[in-house]
């Protein structure tokens, strides 16, 4: 494989070209006790660095290279026009503390984005501050807490969260010092209404629901749930990570949701980047608006200004949020328009149901009814009958050239396999994937060992994750044994594994 960048370092080599000092060398007079002893960074040429990261990139699977049906992640195509927009100097090279007069264009983008999100969610106010989905949850639930406090309703510290929820939901509650009350799913994949009724009381601050749920299902009792929650004096939070199923068609605000976050890095095509940056705006009803974090953008005639809401919970992040993601999402929404977004959600639902039906024979659907943007299967039966587990199918898919779907989530589905095709994938692509999945199901019956030993055709075999966690090796150290092939930088990524075999031979 590719060596670590540190292993390529040569003392004295330079990869930059900086101006000569044009004033006196004041730094030379800094007292030595303030100076660091050494700066142990690597030393490389620009070509060294370029090659290293180009080669590393070639070890990645990505949307731009193939179908990536990761459930709950909305791995849709990220339009390149978004990138051109964000790279414009007037967006990329402005300082967050410049006076408002100098950044009216940027504030206009933020304001318009707030407005469009408000519109799409059917809410009254929006903050763009949160940096990701979980951060949006934190912000949204902080609003809920602030609301109850403002009413002096201090006992409300319990949050009801379905067992099927994403891990960030309970973790968010904990990070706000709130306690989590788990809620069961009924036989149809909906909220257990009986249990919900029994749990709602005057300690409950709110209920966090994911809409559509992490089972990919629309909560058919949603209006009744909202009514019950409100009747109990609590608020309804919506985890809007799955907004791609609703956008342009259904407004969570109309369903009775009081506050929600939206992942711009899912529905609104800001690229996921291998784990961020994201952006998790929060939209809320008017009762929560006074508590929004600082700052939001306000319009004042034809001027835009930054604004701190009256009872703001304070700041949740430095400066103004992940602005670069705001531009991308703004660009996407302006290109789609409301009609385009409606087609987005419809096609997302169409594609997921196509997968659901086409794979319904070979695999077991967790809850057999029309799904929204993703289809969740349970491989419990396959496991019982063949010993092949969800992870085996996931790894075997790699041999067929596909990224795996999400596995073992939601936790309430045994041997869960969660497929979110997204609307940007064509019928031909889905058909190819379906054929591969069916072939694997056949293999599981006929030759289970083949599937259990997968992947067979990737450069890497399965990783030893247990040792990784038990004896964590979390950084390179100069004392590490030098690795990497003896043939220096001749590694052709297309050939790497063979090369290394050669070197071992």
């Amino acid at each position, binding site marked *: 494989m590719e060596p670590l960048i*540190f292993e390529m370092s040569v003392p004295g080599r330079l990869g930059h070209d900086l101006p000569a000092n044009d004033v006196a060398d*004041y730094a030379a007079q800094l007292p030595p*006790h303030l100076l660091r002893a050494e700066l142990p960074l690597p030393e490389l040429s620009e070509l060294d660095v370029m090659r290293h990261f180009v080669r590393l990139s070639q070890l990645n699977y990505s949307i731009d290279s193939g179908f990536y049906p990761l459930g709950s992640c909305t791995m849709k195509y990220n339009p390149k026009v978004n*990138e051109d927009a964000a790279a414009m100097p007037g967006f990329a090279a*402005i300082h*967050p503390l410049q006076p408002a007069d100098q950044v009216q*264009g940027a504030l206009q983008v933020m304001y318009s984005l707030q407005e469009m999100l408000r519109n799409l969610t059917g809410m009254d106010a929006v903050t763009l501050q949160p940096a990701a989905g979980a951060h949006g949850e934190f912000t949204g639930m902080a609003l809920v807490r602030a609301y109850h406090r403002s009413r002096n309703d201090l006992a409300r510290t319990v949050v009801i969260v379905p067992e099927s929820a994403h891990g960030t939901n309970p973790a968010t509650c904990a990070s706000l010092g709130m306690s989590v009350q788990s809620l069961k799913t009924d036989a149809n994949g909906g909220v257990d209404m009986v249990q919900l009724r029994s749990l709602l009381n005057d300690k409950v601050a709110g209920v966090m629901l994911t809409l559509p749920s992490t089972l990919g299902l629309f909560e058919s009792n949603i209006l009744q749930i909202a009514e019950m929650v409100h009747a109990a004096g609590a608020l309804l939070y919506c985890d809007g990570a799955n907004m791609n199923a609703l956008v342009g068609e259904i407004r969570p605000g109309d369903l009775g949701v009081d506050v929600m976050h939206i992942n711009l890095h899912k529905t609104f095509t800001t690229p996921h980047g291998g784990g961020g940056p994201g952006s998790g705006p929060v939209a809320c009803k008017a009762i929560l608006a006074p508590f929004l974090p600082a700052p939001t953008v306000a319009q004042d005639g034809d001027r835009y200004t930054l604004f701190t809401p009256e009872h703001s919970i304070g700041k949740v992040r430095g*400066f103004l949020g992940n602005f670069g993601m705001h531009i991308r999402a703004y660009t996407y929404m302006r290109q789609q328009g409301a009609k385009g977004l409606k087609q987005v959600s419809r096609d997302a639902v169409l594609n997921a149901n196509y997968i659901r039906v086409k794979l319904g024979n070979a695999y077991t659907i967790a809850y057999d009814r029309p799904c929204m943007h993703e289809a969740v299967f349970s491989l419990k039966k396959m496991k019982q009958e063949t010993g092949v587990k969800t992870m085996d199918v996931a790894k075997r898919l*790699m041999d067929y050239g596909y990224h795996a779907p999400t596995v073992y989530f939601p936790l309430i589905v045994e041997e869960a396999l969660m497929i979110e095709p997204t609307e940007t994938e064509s019928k031909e692509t889905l058909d190819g994937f379906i054929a591969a999945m069916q072939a694997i199901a056949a293999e599981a019956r006929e030759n289970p060992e083949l599937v259990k030993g997968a992947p067979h055709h990737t450069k890497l075999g399965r*990783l030893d994750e247990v040792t990784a966690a038990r004896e964590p090796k979390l950084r390179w150290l100069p004392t590490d044994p030098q690795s990497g092939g003896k043939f220096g930088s001749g590694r052709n990524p297309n050939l790497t594994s063979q090369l290394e075999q050669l070197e071992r031979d």
Partner: protein
Amino acid sequence: MAYSPHTTAEREAMLKAIGVEQIEELYTAVPGEMMNAQFDFPPALSEPELHRHLRGISSKNADALTHPIFLGAGAYNHFTPSAIRFITQRGEFQTAYTPYQPELSQGTLQSIYEFQTLVCQIAGMDVANASMYDGATSLAEAALMAVNITRRKKVIISDAIHPDSEAVLRTYADGHQIEVIATADPISHAELGAAACVIVQHPDFFGRITDLSDYAAKVHDAGSLLIIAFYPTALGLLKSPGEYGADIAVGEGQSLGVGLQFGGPYVGLLACKTQYVRSIPGRIVGQTKDSKGQRAYVLTLQTREQHIRREKATSNICTNEALIALGATVYTCLMGKQGLRRVAEMSYNHAHYLAERITELQGYKLHFAAPFFNEFVVDTPIAPADLNKRLWEQAGIIGGFDVSAKLGGNAMLLCTTEQNTKEQLDQLVGLLAQFGK
């Protein structure tokens, strides 16, 4: 309808395969009146129209490529080499998810492992995570780490940490019954013995370099942890948190070639001593081997994280700032040992030349006597807001940050980087002289 691959015929074929006639039949769970919501939306723009529209809006902003800038205060106009974008915009990096399937994500995983190592090298620490949202949230999460480790509920902060960091810390502390105490001299504070941690910024918000040599000993003696928030570029020159004995080091990675970007996305850095590794928030990549014995990388210590531990996780963070971390990694590799130091020296030199020249002017003087890095506070004869307005209107210069409210009087925080030329510095001095009369 850009980006939808479906033709009408294909949509129909798929509906048929599903066994419905209309897409609406798939929405039976949705209360009918909730469908077909109406939206008050601006009209859709085609791609050429979008380009024109965005060029128009962006040109209303005064960018730091065309305008000399003396604004810092946590976001710095350091140079971004061209090579970086060629790496970060590669689809393989940009359009991959969090590397949950390591066999297909070694590019992302190895680059994060390298990022973690570089953060440790800069900060002089043992281990680092895969990134946090930004510097302010890194600091807040570090404080929560200290609270968890020490089981104490007070946090002492220097009153010269970035105001946004303090604000975010207070938001994060809320709900955990944590008391945040801001003070000018944290290690002499009476509550030190009850504090989970002491947090200082290095250099501080006003650019001052404090000798932190006796901090660690005093803090540790009191059973508390030392958290140092650092400016990575400054560490090209200055003593590192590790050398000062910090337990946790946090930083805003923006200065590592990320660019200004109107405040984000930036990248939060978080590193600590080995003994605290299981309290770290967020993702961590570790080295391991695959079934064929090949060196490989994988997300590890995941039992700290929300997707495994849920409400018992060390943090709720999930998506972080991977692509920005990648850019910072590339930057740090390009700069390397010598380059980061050069950037630090030039930023330092420019600020000191500027300060020297400004103190020669009538009506201006340095607010603090302490050594400083690339920022310093000047007491000005007229209000900074007025100065900035005139700098902008007369010369298209983006002026300094107004700290009058914080420090009293007329006080402005001026910043330079390697990108300010002597010409720009002299021009600023000339204008200040003129405005000060």
